[in-house]
Structure formats: C-alpha cells, structure tokens
C-alpha cells in the first residue's frame, strides 16, 4: 500500500464552475504511475425538476462540509489503493444542465478507481451537509432526501468487509 503522501486528497467547496479536463490533467500529470482515472460529474437535470423550476439553490454547513468530504476521501484511500482523490462541490444558485459535483479517483488499476469513486459519491450523498432547494415562480421548495442514497451508502459496509480483506483487488 502506498504511503499517505502518495495519495493526495484535494477538496473544494465553491460557487464557481470547474473544468473537468483540466482537473484530470492536473491529477494525471502529477504521477505517471496512474493508469486509471475515473470521474463522476453530477448535473442539475430537467427531469428531476418540475417544469416550473427556474433554478436550484445549494445550501451547506460551512466547516462541516469540508470536514465531511475530507473524511470520505480519506476513507476511500484507506479502503482502496489510490494515487489521488479530488472532490469539487458547488454551492449557490445553479440552472438545469450546470455541473454540481465532481469526484475524481486515480489509481494504478481501474477497479480500485471505479469502486472508490462510487463509494465516495454514495457517502457524499448521505453524509456531506448540502441541501438543495428548487426555485419556482410560486416560490421555493426543499428537495426531499432519497431513501435509495442511504441504502447505497449502507451497502458499502457489507460489501467492503465481505470482499476486501486487503487492497489488492484489481
């Protein structure tokens, strides 16, 4: 297993948009032992929103947000052999089609990068203190939590303990 210094973790909570290509280049150019880069990008989607929704507003808990994301990324680097993790989560007002979140996981092998990425998103959805509010001409309404997300996160406790006694599972 790599030392922690070889698993750089970088977290940003920001109102600004981000450039996926540039984020991936920065991570991959830092270490030529990276063979696999998995990225997840979450977008504000139309279908999620009623026809009258104009925009989405993202509230968060400053301080805890960064702490929760750091914790989630560290958990992933302990469970899988990774070369780097980058998480960006936007806050503020977003319109349909805009990027909300990006998770990048880099490793020597693809299965570690895929599984760590899925794990991070499942945990982020249930542990990171962000809340979505939909704005409509009639006023705002808070988005309700999905029960699916909580069960996806819970599943990792079982899967990881069953399948990964060690981190060599490419």
């Amino acid at each position, binding site marked *: 297993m790599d030392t922690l210094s070889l698993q750089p973790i970088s977290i940003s909570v920001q109102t600004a948009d981000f450039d996926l290509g540039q984020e991936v280049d920065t991570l991959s150019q830092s270490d030529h032992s990276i063979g696999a880069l998995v990225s997840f990008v979450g977008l504000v989607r139309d279908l999620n929103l009623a026809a009258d929704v104009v925009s989405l507003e*993202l509230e968060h808990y400053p301080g*805890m947000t960064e702490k929760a994301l750091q914790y989630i990324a560290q958990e992933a680097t302990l469970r899988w052999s990774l070369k780097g993790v980058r998480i960006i989560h936007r806050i503020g007002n977003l319109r349909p089609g805009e990027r*909300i979140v990006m998770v990048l996981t880099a490793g020597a092998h693809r299965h570690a990068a895929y599984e760590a990425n899925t794990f991070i998103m499942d945990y982020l*959805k*249930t*542990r990171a*203190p962000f*809340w*979505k509010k939909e704005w409509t001409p009639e006023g705002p309404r808070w988005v309700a*939590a999905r029960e699916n997300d909580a069960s996806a996160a819970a599943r990792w406790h079982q899967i990881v303990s069953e399948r990964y006694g060690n981190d060599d599972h490419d």
Partner: protein
Amino acid sequence: MQINLLYFARLREAFQTGQETLTLPDSIQNVADLVAHLSARGGIWANELAANQVFRVAVDQDLADFSTPLHEGAEVAIFPPVTGG
C-alpha cells in the same frame, strides 16, 4: 453547560433562526436529552423534533446519534437529511 446550536435548510426556516447559544440544565448530557429539551418548547419545535420525524444531528461537525455526549462549548447542528451531490 453552554452550547452553540445551528439549524440548516428546511429546519432553519421552520425554526426561524439559524443559530442560538443555549445554557443547558445539568440534567442534559447527550443528544437525546437536548432534542427532548428543545421539543419541550412546543409548537414547531415539538412538531419537527417528534419521534416520527427524520432529522440529523452533528456534534462538533461530526454526524452524531442520540447517545452522543455533549460538552461545554460544543457546536451542535440539527438539520434535515442531506440532499447534495
């Protein structure tokens, strides 16, 4: 002891405040005690913190459960299930 309470999202709006500093009676030692204490205010507090409601509590910015102990100067946040990502 004295704690700093934070409310977020729908609960911040329901309670019509995002923050309050509270001095607790000695009988209040953990999260469950605190929730019962706030619920005893009645009205929206009793409604939102009732046993059939789903909410989350963080102590010092870590997710907590009902048995998590409180301490002097703790930062305690109460909020709805998160919906980011």
